[in-house]
């Protein structure tokens, strides 16, 4: 998914999602099962009541959810997302990441580029960091967030703070 996709004007949420069904077929109309599929996915992302309003009236977070839904409808096993939670308020960021986390339990692999370390740490399972020297560090949550790794990747000093249930990343100057 690109960072700033192009959106056609004056198109409803439902029509926007239904577009994908015209890609691989030659038919003029979409079937009822496909309509149900769209309705189901809209219910799952909590936008069913907005299915007949124009996409220009949706917020950035809602639009991002719609695009993720587009990927799901098309039957993708792997979603590649370039900063899906950028330009959003914290609530929407968390909502989107929760939705994505939910999808991982349904055998969908999700690869996200993120810059927010604390959110990444909370929702991610596996982490890949790339240093300036193109060295790739690939580890799970506990092994990845160490001051040494982060120093190598970002060239900044970090401190890992252990709370009661969670671990936090703190930037040192």
């Amino acid at each position: 998914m690109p960072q700033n996709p192009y959106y056609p004007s004056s198109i409803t949420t439902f029509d926007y999602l239904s577009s994908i069904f015209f890609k691989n077929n030659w038919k003029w109309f979409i079937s009822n099962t496909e309509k149900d599929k769209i309705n189901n996915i809209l219910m799952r992302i909590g936008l069913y009541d907005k299915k007949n309003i124009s996409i220009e009236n949706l917020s950035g977070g809602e639009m991002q959810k719609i695009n993720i839904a587009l990927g799901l409808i098309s039957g993708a096993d792997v979603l590649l997302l370039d900063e899906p939670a950028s330009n959003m308020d914290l609530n929407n960021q968390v909502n989107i990441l929760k939705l994505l986390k939910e999808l991982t339990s349904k055998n969908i692999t999700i690869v996200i580029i993120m810059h927010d370390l604390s959110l990444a740490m909370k929702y991610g399972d596996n982490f890949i960091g790339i240093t300036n020297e193109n060295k790739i560090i690939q580890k799970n949550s506990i092994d990845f967030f160490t001051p040494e790794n982060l120093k190598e990747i970002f060239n900044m000093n970090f401190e890992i703070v252990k709370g009661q249930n969670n671990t936090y990343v703190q930037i040192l100057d």
Partner: protein
Amino acid sequence: MTKKQILSIILLVFLFFICLFLCLFYKLDINNKELILSYIRIPTIIKAIISGSCLAIAGMFLQTISKNALADPYLTGLSAGAGFGIVISILLFNSVNYSIFGFIGAIITAFLVILLSGFSKFSITKLILIGLSLNLFTGAIISFLILKNPDKSYEMTLILTGGFSSSEISDKFLVILFILTLIICSIFIPKLNALRLDNKLIFKNQSAANKYNIIFVILAAFLTSISVYCAGILGFVGIICPLLSKLIFGNDIRLLFFTNILLGSSLLLFSNFISTNIIYPLQIPLGIVISIVGVPFFIFFLLKKGGILNN
């Protein structure tokens, strides 16, 4: 479909038939009724309907795949390329036979636009820019050829300014060609409903999307050459009709296909009516009338509902 859309379609059909009626029966001489109808008016309205709907559909194709409201057969150089092919054939072949050769020439020149914009690394922005410069280039060459060949300048000027008396092809052939093209287009139309979204969301990579983009550019080139063949190079129709129908009917290409046919042919029929009747014995070139009729109308709509250009 909403109530508003259905009402607009009924209005549009009504408008189409008013224009058709005006073009056919306005100031019809009772004594020579059948002669005038079958030799002058019916061939003219057939050409008007065909060229108008072809331009409108071609404009819709180009605007949808390029996601640019400014893309149309005239600005992308497809019209000029087709016109150039026909002018060349006017020069090379005698006037009875130039119809078929001109048509082939038009298609070849339209392909050149696609080739120049690069088959392997096809990009729509490049297509528009190359089309724009090719448009100016061929326009200049046509003007030059008109100056150099005064004996054939009338036919060539008609291609450049637009008018229905330019071609000598039979109506039957044109109608069959037009219907065949519409059938081919209607096979591909639903695909445009997917292509209206961001290509990166729909396709795995750009080359998969370009496969469809190139199909639609070829279709648009074909439609444009039919239209240039009927009525010469006409600007504005290919940009006004798709935008206007998008403003009124929303973004469903399946619906827009039909509204574009109706809107394009109504616009050309109405312009034809004005061009033949407003200063009665004199015939104003069609291109001039279209600009005078279409542009104020278009600007009015744009000011009233201009959000469509803001993407």
